[in-house]
């Protein structure tokens, strides 16, 4: 079996070799692109006076004019300078805000489908107003994806003013809208909302039974704010629409009982990739407990699934890090924001396994009925672009995986933040003490301090250290989510000390008061390096907004989880040297190198996992596209004959394939079973003629029989009642078997890394086995349709009887 970490280290080596070359190339590309954008900015600037001279009404009319020119054949490229200049003038009139030149550059990068990297506080929201307007002129809708509902609402009100002024419509897409409200929001020229909601609407649109019930239009252009969070940080969490299924509580409890008594050599926990697997010992314990021979036998897949989920709940999922228990319920914690993920739950029984672990009431299981990763959702857009303050360090990944390049937009005002060098301690205890001391010093001069942590657990450790120094502070974590915005907004007040999990309150401005500014601005202290430099930068970026003063520094230790998880092998060597040195910060060069190594390994591992996940999800995505296309056809096709009649033929052929093999002589064929299955489908006694000796001949014979019924069905399908019956049957069949397919594919994915395939790549195997499963799913979807079609008269009669009964009642 190939471990992900092996792949990672090789990948890392290769990457290093090409770093220099990349830097050079990047620099060239970047400067060329910027030069080009500067040229267009000049054009925009030159147009400014023309629009300034226009009345409000004339400006509004410009929108109509631009639309007409597009219709007449001009391209966005040809119009963009005018469109940008128009938005800039409208913004001045409506909001009193004029786009800076650098904001125009950002807008142009977005219009090209790039990621515009702009420092925090550079007015990204205003930047998005430019390409969103320009692309909306096409009339196919533009989606602006915000970090949360609050910001979506704010943008609709504020930035929407510009668009409305220019005669476009603006929609707000938030959860819990009625379908009509949703349709109105999507029908608007520009629609704001949170990415997950757009993804869920897509899934919901593929669960409706009438095309009129759908809410989305085709996916045209999207601008994603904090694009790195969406495409990288959340890459591992798919959006899942779930129906309720019940978990077997008894088996869950037993599974928990067994794994909680596991000795440490019963499983292997790979902290790097947070994956746990059973050792031979663990496997034997399970086999003994259930008196089975081979846990990995196909027939024991169900048991395996329960045991692995129990093990994950027990070993991988940590209380107060991955989840909290609140009011007798498991609430998941977003590892990047530290926020509770409201209403989110883990699927496939893992959530219930955690409930069993914590001994709280077991809820119903979420049975996945539709699933898409947010990345695949956005890949369906004709063009996607994004904004963030921190993407450059992940440029390669974004380019390779999503084909989006990062354009670094120069800052409008020079950055005044001082990013001080890391201070490293040998132990966590010393680290927290140093954090408290640094905080105390800053506090003494009334400088506001924001201490970033990576988990709730760590927040409490920091709080304890501050208590020792008698410092009072605000603590912000998933458990106090209600006050999040208030606490973050006030974090810039002089003398304020705030402890927050790293991304808490992202999107909320930390505003400094005068005394705080004079005291040096916000001092951000990082207490542990994050999973990537990019996230470290996100934390630093909380300070020094829009030319404000500020400082950032990481105070870390060699005992940090990141080091333990990703640089265990090298740690010992460094520790030996450290021991001989006196107390205080570790000044060894090797220590700094070790931290960087740990972070790089973590980044590399994360990248490999995401890369692999994307590939695995690609397989399922292809299946989804086929199924959804079929579903759309059912909803949209005027007539369904051409769709369903071949299903009957294929079903007949499958029955032949299942029972009759060309490798056997006809005497050895299980004719009785075959005949039963065929008669059952055809709803008729159609004996297998004795003179047929090849399965292909048998297929031809039975296909002929169903073809002879074709005319009759064609006629029947003209009856709207029959048409509706067949469509409903097909939709129900798709829903049922697609849900099953998702479960099976998830189980397959779960097991794919635990099975050895010799030289074969797991992804390749997943694709191969997935294809077989998909064929089976298609067969399962088609069978009931073929079955009903053979006995239409009975179904129609039954329907009529039911209606009569209802009338009687």
């Amino acid at each position, binding site marked *: 079996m190939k471990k992900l970490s092996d792949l990672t280290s090789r990948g890392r080596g290769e990457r290093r070799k090409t770093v220099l070359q990349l830097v050079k190339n990047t620099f060239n590309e970047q400067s060329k692109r910027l030069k080009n954008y500067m040229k267009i900015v000049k054009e925009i600037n030159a147009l400014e006076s023309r629009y300034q001279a226009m009345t409000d009404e004339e400006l509004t009319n410009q929108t109509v004019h631009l639309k007409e020119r597009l219709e007449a054949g001009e391209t966005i490229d040809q119009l963009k300078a005018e469109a940008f200049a128009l938005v800039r003038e409208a913004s001045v009139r409506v909001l009193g805000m004029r786009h800076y030149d650098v904001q125009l550059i950002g807008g142009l990068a977005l219009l090209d489908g790039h990621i515009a990297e702009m420092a925090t506080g550079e007015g990204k929201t205003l930047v998005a107003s430019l390409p969103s307007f320009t692309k909306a002129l096409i009339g196919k809708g533009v989606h602006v994806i915000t970090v949360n509902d609050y910001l979506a609402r704010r943008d609709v009100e504020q930035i929407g003013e510009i668009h409305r002024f220019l005669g476009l419509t603006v929609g707000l897409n938030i959860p819990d809208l009625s379908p009509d409200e949703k349709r109105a929001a999507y029908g608007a020229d520009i629609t704001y909302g949170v990415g997950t909601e757009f993804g869920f609407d897509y899934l919901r649109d593929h669960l409706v039974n009438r095309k009129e019930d759908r809410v989305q239009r085709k996916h045209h252009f999207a601008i994603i704010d904090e694009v790195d969070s969406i495409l990288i940080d959340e890459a591992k969490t798919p959006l899942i629409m779930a129906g309720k299924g*019940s978990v*077997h*509580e*008894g*088996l869950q409890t*037993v599974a928990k009982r067994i794994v909680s008594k596991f000795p440490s050599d019963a499983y292997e926990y790979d902290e790097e990739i947070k994956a746990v697997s059973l050792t031979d010992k663990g496997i034997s314990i399970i086999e*003994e*407990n*259930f*008196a*089975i021979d081979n846990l990995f036998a196909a027939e024991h897949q*169900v*048991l395996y699934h*329960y045991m692995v989920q129990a093990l994950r709940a027990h070993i991988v999922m940590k209380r107060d890090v991955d989840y909290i228990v609140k009011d007798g319920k498991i609430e998941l914690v977003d590892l990047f924001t530290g926020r509770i993920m409201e209403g989110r739950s883990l699927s496939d029984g893992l959530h219930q396994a955690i409930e069993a672990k914590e001994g709280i009431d077991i809820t119903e299981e979420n049975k996945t009925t539709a699933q898409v990763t947010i990345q695949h959702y956005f890949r369906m857009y004709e063009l996607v672009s994004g904004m963030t303050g921190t993407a450059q360090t992940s440029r390669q990944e974004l380019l390779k995986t999503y084909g989006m390049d990062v354009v670094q937009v120069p800052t409008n005002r020079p950055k005044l933040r001082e990013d001080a060098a890391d201070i490293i301690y040998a132990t966590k205890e010393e680290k927290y003490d140093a954090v408290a001391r640094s905080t105390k010093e800053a506090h003494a001069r009334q400088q506001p301090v924001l201490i970033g942590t990576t988990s709730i657990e760590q927040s409490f450790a920091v709080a304890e250290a501050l208590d020792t120094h008698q410092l009072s502070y605000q603590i912000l974590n998933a458990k106090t989510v209600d006050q999040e915005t208030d606490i973050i907004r006030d974090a810039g007040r002089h003398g304020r000390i705030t402890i927050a999990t790293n991304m808490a309150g992202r999107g909320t401005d930390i505003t400094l008061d005068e005394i705080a500014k004079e005291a040096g601005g916000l001092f951000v202290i990082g207490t542990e390096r994050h999973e990537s430099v990019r996230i470290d930068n996100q934390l630093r970026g909380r300070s020094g907004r829009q030319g404000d003063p500020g400082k950032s520094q990481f105070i870390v230790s060699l005992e940090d989880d990141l080091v333990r998880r990703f640089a265990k092998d090298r740690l010992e060597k460094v520790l030996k040297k450290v021991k001989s040195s006196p107390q205080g910060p570790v000044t060894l060069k090797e220590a700094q190198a070790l931290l960087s190594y740990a972070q790089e390994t973590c980044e590399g591992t994360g990248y490999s996992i995401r890369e692999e996940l994307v590939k695995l999800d690609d397989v399922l995505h292809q299946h989804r596209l086929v199924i959804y296309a079929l579903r759309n056809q059912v909803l949209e096709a005027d007539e369904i004959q051409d769709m369903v009649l071949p299903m009957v033929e294929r079903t007949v052929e499958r029955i032949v394939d299942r029972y009759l093999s060309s490798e056997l002589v006809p005497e050895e064929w299980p004719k009785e079973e075959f005949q039963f299955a065929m008669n059952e489908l055809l709803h008729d006694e159609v004996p297998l003629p004795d003179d047929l000796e090849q399965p292909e001949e048998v297929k031809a014979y039975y296909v002929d029989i169903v073809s002879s019924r074709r005319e009759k069905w064609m006629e029947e399908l003209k009856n709207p009642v029959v048409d509706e019956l067949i469509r409903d049957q097909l939709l129900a069949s798709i829903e049922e078997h697609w849900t099953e397919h998702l479960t099976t594919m998830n189980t397959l994915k779960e097991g794919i890394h635990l099975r050895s395939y010799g030289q074969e790549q797991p992804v390749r195997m997943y694709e191969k086995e997935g294809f077989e499963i998909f064929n089976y799913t298609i067969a399962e979807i088609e069978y009931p349709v073929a079955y009903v079609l053979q006995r239409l008269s009975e179904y129609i009669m039954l329907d009529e009887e039911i209606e009569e009964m209802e009338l009687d009642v």
Partner: protein
Amino acid sequence: MFNRRKQIILEAEAPENTGLYKPRLIFTEDMLIEKEDEYLFRYHANQLPDLELNQLSVEALQVDLSSSPISIVALFRNTLENSFHVDGLPLLVLDEANRLIGRKVLTTEDIPEFVPMSSMPCWLDFSEEELFLAEEERFPEKIRLLFSLEETHDLEIPPDFLDAEARRVRQTFYSTPTLKNEEVNVMNVWNDRSENMLTGLFLIRNGYEQTIQLGTLPLQLLSGEQVLQSLHVSLTSPIEARTTRAVKVVLDVSEWHDQEMLQFRVAQG
């Protein structure tokens, strides 16, 4: 929750050479066992202590409160050498305090046949009449099942008994050792005062091999230990041989409305 669904599995567990046997787990076709249930049965069958030869054992695995009124999933294990039926074998349900809370006479409908040397899961549906808990009491999740080998009398409960009263009578009847031959016994099961009426429930148990005619039931009305009144309740019909009859006495006690702790007692002699 155990569900009755889907497929059939047959697995055998070889007995060990220790004089102790682990009966093989058997699922019959009509059980329609779900895969998850199969593992639970496997687990429990595996955890239970081995049996000596010629033993019959029953283990409650789960109380299913979702079925009305309740269903108990039990594992029946035997090390008997021949197949046998359990028609008429009473099964007692005890709570953690060993209080009798249910009794069911097993029939071939519950368990068609015991396969020799086997463990077999069984769903036992209990009717209202087979459960003895008071209405407000919740059926406990932890219970014990026992076979009752004791022969019991027939129990006659007149139709005017309320459900709750019948439950009390049954619980007392089945919790009390069966009467010896040639003995008659009268027991006060329960007294309940509701406003001005006092209701007393009694069991008259006839241990004789022949019908008896008691004529009257001598009672005393007490307030604590103080006798307020003696009464004779007439019993019109005879009590059949080896039969216990439940009797309900209702008395207007408005005369003693200021008295507390009113109760009946069977008069001695």
